């Protein structure tokens, strides 16, 4: 486009800009300055200034982030039109009005954020020029960026420069600084010492072995060392005794329990859904147990990550791997979703997953790119949607999964043996009784000359539905209803029986796997409700001489296999068309109901029967498959008794039957022999006891599995994930296809190297395993960053602060590492050692850096007050779980039982990781000491020091109970010097200190303690307390477990 007159061009642009609509109702009103009379002249002068100076200033200082490669804060300087639209923070430039132009305030550093960001303030003449230019209407003579093919001009491009940011670079080998300093124990120390030397600070010498043993135990296991172990350790002359103790602790379950808790903070793990009802997730705990077991096995961290994303796909059939996917579903989930919120809620859920993976595993706030390209990090919104599309169809599911069961074959073999014995018994009975069964039966039958032989299954001639359902009849008499299932229905079934006088009627309803819950009903929950049953009888051979009319049979004495409360079988014959017989909740089972017929007519030659089954009690509560039977017998037959085969009928009628028929009848007769019935019941019972492999019901995540469904007016997931404008489901773009973070993929690299197609017909999509493969690829994918982030987390939990202090943010806004080479070296160590976290733990606790004492001095404090250079060990308070676990441990109240469902009893005694975590009722003992709220991935936990913590320890039940147990326990332990109430016992005080804080009291502490016991004891005695000495000891123990020394890792 080339216009002849620059002024016309500018005026045209100006007019266009005025017409730009506001694009967000939350924005302040769009300001315009009155158009000055001389605006044309001004614009012309402004355009000259633009060419002479402004264009260069903008290009050099602003364009890179605002309209060039990026459009930070949504502010684009590429064209005047875009500039006048402003950014997310609103208008930046108001033509002709410098005071209203925020851009000027920012470059003048009169308002934050100061611009240009992260570089020097503009020169005064540049600022002056900008101001003048705005006063002249801020015209552009041409766009700052070539607009050709720049329809996507606002979209962020990820550049090589972006990929070169420290955390995004692939790991390279890092040389360890050479050092001959005797302080150095391993390479960690060499890195640390090199930095310290630069600052001219000396590191602290190691703390005493007792202090280190306590530090080791508290950090690695969250529990204090056992006094006996401590004693042995202190007496051990081996210089590597502590290293051995570390190995011992690292291999222990308490270590895994403590560090799994750290991971659960990231996984936002809890055992309820949150939102409206905060329903429980009773099967969420297996994921918690998985985390513990994974750490206990030192599962390589790459697999640890992969399995949490796609364990079911990467290790099919491995329950342990599947359990890991509980990670994806650990976040909150709305339990009541209205129709117009369905899409938003689902996108929120995908956002929760990617936010957790992003910040937790990659240290990146990927979710910031939901509404726009990431403001700071090179994460385009497109990357965000391509990533979340991985989980488009992923849902939570409570699944029954097989677990390791080494004794199963043995159990099965034992069962099979007894099964064989029983079968043999049955076979020999049949052998003995079979041959004469028919003749004996015929002899007996002739005497009674009646068909007293059980149920005759009716093979209907016709079955019709009033409401339009399709009824089909199978050769064995079963009638199946398919097709339309109207709100109400009535089935009419016609059949013939050889019975002369019908004395009993039976209806059976069969379980059916194709129906909800296995039927037998076709209602939405698998139920049926038989409202009315009428049976009308006609003679098969009408006697032409006699008058006859159809007789409505009188059904009495209803009996059923099961009756739903309030809906008994009797209701099906009470004439009330709204009452009926139903079977909720016994779905997936066969059911039967039977009646005695009173006063039925006798029709020699057989009876024709017409049944009408009505279903009007509840909406669409029809039966799926049913069968009707009749009998001439009295008294009442068993509901599920065997049916009379037609061959038996033939025999009674004197017809000849073949051998196969005889065998069938023999079998039928044997089945009614009381002795054999007893035997076969035994077999049946035994069959039911067939051992099955052990299973666990667990909340896992996958595709193609039944979703946990709560109250929603929509589906469980959306079929497609779309690119959304501003994160708004009402502004859908194209369908997003899976991709990864461009900044963690080499330019031009084909992403399909991680994307593998699954076999045809696979249950899952394979998308999650694609992501998992990319995540751990250190050379070309996310692996290098993944390794940096996790070693930093380990470091954080050992030292109280990571080498990167912002543990969840390795992006541009995050802190830079204090020791970048050390971090990369550790990350490399991790990968080279098979991603073994234990290897990194060993390196850390084996370092002189970790073993430094906490000693401070003013000089070094002045140079590095926050110990960024690691010249000392910084003491820190135990986390909530460790405070409680230590209280329980020292008092002997701790129940070490691992694994399994947690407890919501606030006074339970297992480790704190076994609290049942209900989001609306988080345990008070945890929350007061800064445990996270579980709603989103937690940051590094804050450590607050507030009065409610003091109140909880001072007055709360936990600390008091523990104090009492601790006092008694110590008294019982010091058998050498029995504790009496007469005189306070120094031996007891000594043992108390050893147990609580891992050392003997100093002489002044001893003195204070004895004085306290004496004074407290006397006062309590005066106050008439029953056992003053004992209570005084409890008071002392209670004081000791509240001390800073008890609560802090030193």
């Amino acid at each position, binding site marked *: 486009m080339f216009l002849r007159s620059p002024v016309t061009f500018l005026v045209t642009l100006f007019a266009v800009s005025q017409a730009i609509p506001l694009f967000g109702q939350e924005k302040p009103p769009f300001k315009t300055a009155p158009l000055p009379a001389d605006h044309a002249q001004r614009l012309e002068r402004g355009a000259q200034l633009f060419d002479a100076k402004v264009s260069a200033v903008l290009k050099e200082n602003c364009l890179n982030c605002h309209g060039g490669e990026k459009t930070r804060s949504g502010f684009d300087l590429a064209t005047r039109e875009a500039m006048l639209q402003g950014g997310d923070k609103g208008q930046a430039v108001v033509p002709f009005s410098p005071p209203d132009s925020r851009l000027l305030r920012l470059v003048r550093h009169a308002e934050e954020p100061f611009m240009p960001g992260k570089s020097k303030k503009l020169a005064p003449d540049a600022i002056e020029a900008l101001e003048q230019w705005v006063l002249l209407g801020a015209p552009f003579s041409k766009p700052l960026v070539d607009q050709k093919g720049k329809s996507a001009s606002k979209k962020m491009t990820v550049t090589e420069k972006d990929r070169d940011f420290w955390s995004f670079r692939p790991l390279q080998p890092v040389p360890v600084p050479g050092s001959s300093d005797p302080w150095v124990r391993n390479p960690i120390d060499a890195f640390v010492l090199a930095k310290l030397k630069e600052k001219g600070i000396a590191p602290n010498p190691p703390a005493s072995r007792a202090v280190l043993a306590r530090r080791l135990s508290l950090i690695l296991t969250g529990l204090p060392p056992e006094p006996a172990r401590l004693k042995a350790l202190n007496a051990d002359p081996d210089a590597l005794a502590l290293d051995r103790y570390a190995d011992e602790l690292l291999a222990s379950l308490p270590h895994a329990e403590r560090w799994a808790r750290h991971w659960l903070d990231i996984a936002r793990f809890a055992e309820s859904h949150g939102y409206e009802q905060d329903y429980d997730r009773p099967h969420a705990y297996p994921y918690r147990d998985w985390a513990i077991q994974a750490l206990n096995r030192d599962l390589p961290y790459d697999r640890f990550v992969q399995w949490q994303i796609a364990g079911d796909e990467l290790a099919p059939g491995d329950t342990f791997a599947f359990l890991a996917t509980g990670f994806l579903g650990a976040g909150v989930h709305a339990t009541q979703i*209205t129709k117009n919120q369905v899409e938003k809620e689902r996108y929120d859920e995908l956002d929760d997953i990617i936010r957790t993976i992003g910040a937790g595993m990659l240290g990146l706030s990927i979710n910031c790119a939901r509404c726009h390209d990431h403001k700071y990090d090179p994460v385009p919104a497109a990357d965000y949607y391509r990533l979340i599309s991985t989980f488009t169809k992923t849902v939570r599911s409570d699944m029954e999964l097989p677990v390791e069961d080494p004794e199963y074959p043995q159990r099965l073999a034992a069962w099979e043996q007894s099964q064989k014995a029983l079968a043999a018994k049955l076979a020999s009975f049949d052998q003995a009784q079979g041959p004469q069964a028919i003749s004996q039966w015929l002899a007996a039958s002739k005497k009674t000359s009646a068909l007293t032989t059980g149920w005759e299954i009716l093979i209907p001639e016709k079955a019709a539905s009033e409401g339009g359902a399709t009824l089909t009849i199978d050769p064995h008499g079963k009638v199946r209803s398919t097709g339309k299932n109207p709100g109400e229905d009535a089935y009419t079934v016609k059949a013939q029986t050889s019975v002369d006088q019908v004395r009993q009627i039976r209806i059976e309803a069969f379980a059916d796997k194709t129906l909800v819950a296995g039927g037998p009903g076709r209602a939405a929950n698998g139920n049926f409700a038989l409202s009315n049953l009428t049976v009308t009888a006609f003679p098969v051979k009408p006697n032409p001489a006699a008058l006859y009319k159809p007789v409505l049979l009188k059904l009495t004495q209803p009996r059923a296999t099961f009756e739903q409360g309030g809906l008994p079988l009797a209701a099906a014959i009470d004439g009330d068309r709204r009452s009926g017989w139903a079977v909720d909740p016994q779905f997936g089972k066969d059911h039967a109901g039977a009646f005695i017929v009173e006063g039925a007519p006798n029709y020699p030659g057989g009876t024709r029967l017409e049944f009408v089954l009505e279903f009007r009690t509840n909406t669409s509560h029809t039966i799926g498959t049913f069968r009707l039977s009749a009998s001439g017998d009295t008294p009442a037959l068993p509901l599920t008794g065997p049916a009379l085969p037609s061959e038996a009928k033939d025999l009674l009628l004197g017809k000849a039957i073949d051998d196969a028929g005889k065998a069938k009848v023999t079998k039928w007769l044997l089945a009614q022999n009381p002795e054999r019935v007893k035997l076969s019941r035994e077999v049946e019972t035994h069959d039911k006891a067939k051992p099955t492999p052990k299973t666990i019901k667990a909340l896992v995540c996958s595709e193609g599995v039944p979703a946990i469904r709560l109250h929603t007016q929509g589906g469980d997931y959306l079929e497609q994930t779309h690119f959304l404008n501003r994160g708004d489901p009402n502004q859908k773009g194209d369908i997003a296809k899976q991709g990864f973070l461009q900044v963690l993929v080499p330019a031009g690299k084909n992403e399909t190297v991680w994307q593998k197609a699954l076999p045809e017909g696979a249950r899952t999509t394979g998308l999650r395993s694609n992501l998992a493969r990319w995540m751990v690829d250190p050379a070309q994918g996310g692996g290098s960053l993944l390794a940096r982030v996790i070693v930093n987390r380990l470091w954080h939990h050992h030292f109280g602060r990571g080498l990167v202090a912002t543990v969840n943010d390795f992006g541009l806004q995050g802190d830079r590492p204090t020791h970048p080479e050390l971090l990369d070296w550790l990350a490399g160590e991790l990968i080279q050692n098979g991603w073994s976290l234990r290897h990194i733990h060993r390196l850390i606790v084996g370092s002189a850096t970790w073993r430094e004492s906490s000693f401070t001095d003013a000089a070094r404090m002045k140079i590095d007050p926050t110990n960024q250079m690691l010249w000392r060990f910084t003491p820190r308070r135990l986390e909530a779980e460790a405070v409680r676990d230590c209280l329980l441990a020292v008092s002997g109240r701790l129940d070490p039982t691992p694994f399994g469902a947690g407890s919501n009893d606030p006074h339970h005694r297992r480790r704190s990781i076994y609290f049942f975590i209900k989001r609306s009722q988080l345990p008070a003992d945890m929350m007061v000491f800064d445990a996270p709220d579980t709603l989103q991935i937690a940051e590094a936990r804050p450590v607050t020091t507030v009065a409610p913590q003091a109140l909880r320890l001072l007055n709360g039940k936990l600390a008091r109970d523990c104090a009492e147990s601790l006092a008694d326990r110590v008294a019982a332990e010091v058998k050498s010097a029995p504790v009496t109430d007469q005189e306070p016992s120094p031996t007891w005080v000594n043992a108390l200190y050893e147990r609580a804080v891992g050392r003997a009291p100093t002489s002044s502490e001893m003195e204070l303690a004895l004085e306290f016991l004496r004074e407290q004891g006397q006062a309590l005695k005066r106050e008439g307390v029953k056992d003053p000495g004992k209570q005084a000891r409890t008071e002392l123990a209670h004081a000791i477990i509240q001390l800073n020394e008890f609560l802090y890792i030193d």
Partner: protein
Amino acid sequence: MDLFPRFFSQPHPSTRRRFLKSFGGLGTLALADMLRRDGYAAGPEGSTNADTARLDPLSPHIGHFPGKAKAVIWLFMNGGPSQVDTWDYKPVLQAKDGVKLDNFDNNTGFFTDQVGPLMKSPFAWKRHGQSGTWVSEIFPHLSRHVDDIAFVHSCHTETNNHSPALFQINTGYNRMGYPCVGAWVTYGLGSEARNLPSFVVMYDTLGRGLPKGHAANWSAGFLPGVFQGTALNPKGAPIDNLDPPAGVNARSQKLQLELMRKLNQAHLDTHPEEKELAARIQSYELAYRMQMAAPEAFDVSREPKAVQELYGIDSPRCGHFAKQCLLARRLVERGVRFVQIFSGGMENERSWDGHADIAGNHRQFAGETDQPAAALLADLKSRGMLDETLVIWGGEFGRLPVAQRPQGSAQTGRDHNPHAFTTWFAGGGVKGGAHYGETDEIGHKAAIDKASVNDLHATILHTLGLDHLKLTYRYNGRQFRLTDVAGNVIRPILT
């Protein structure tokens, strides 16, 4: 009694900066502000909140500018009160009673198949006060205070269901996991009440349940847990752990505390630079004082009979809410920063959620709250506290002008309406008798000067001297605000 005089002398004003540095607090921002004003930089670029805010985050801080309000009492009408039956008079709605609305989106409310015709307010309306404010008959007491109240009639929110809407009005986000207004305010300002919780929440004491979403409504989200609301127990001791364990008397506990102080002091002497250890010793002093102060503060029976009667303490209808309002005043008087009282329990007939019978429901809940709320305004005013206390009245959304009516029924309830509701403010520097914004002629949607939840929040912060753009907290790589990326202070209602 001062157990620990050494740590408890109040800082001299000249050492204020040092005090802030050592004991705390504040988001780096207010601290940074203060230091900047004093001519000091806020420390090295890139230093995080963690180092400055961790020791005593509840110590009182000053805001970004002098605010009129020092404290907030939020009377939360849980369940969604109907704007057209309370404060938003719509004569056209009265006239169009029974008319079926064309093009009405049936997904607006919760019950998509129960959309009836327009339904007029069942209540009589009258003008009150100098401002001539229309008020429905269900507020005979509050109608006498309209000239102290600023009404925002054009509030709107984003969701039509209780729990996301509750999260939105309380935290600014309709998802779980974000800090609520009370948490942001105490984060920004700390608390003047060092012997009491800084942010107190009271919910229904008649056993009708908690608001939907439970404690997430007063959660600190990603802010440190100390900023979360302390919900008073509806029965028994209002706060846990205020009384010594069974069998321990005050004398015995004091002796124990003295021993602990001596032992901790000796430990501190070997760790001279650990401010956290010193702060923990201090926290025991605070805890001890709280044990003394809280029972007194919570005991409304200490109020003169006349005051109790003003609130309606003995009324069987409103006594429960009266006690909470009176307690709120006592707490604010003692320096508590933020008090939120929820009227009603969960949903339907247990709260303002009048799905079935708007007349009966709103008569009941107005009856439970009208006298106590009016008494609170009168009481604060007579004590000269109203100017410094922002009182808020409102719920999570409004209700539809059409009837909620299942097929074939004559039901007279109203379903949820995210598009319009009224929130009012009193005291704390708001303009009495002001009316901001309007809904359309039937009260269905906010139409003029629409006020988003972010706007309400920006305004609340502003009255307290907090700039909603500057009150930020860095979490997982992003600076978060109560108002996210939006919000404007509603200046026309401010003095």
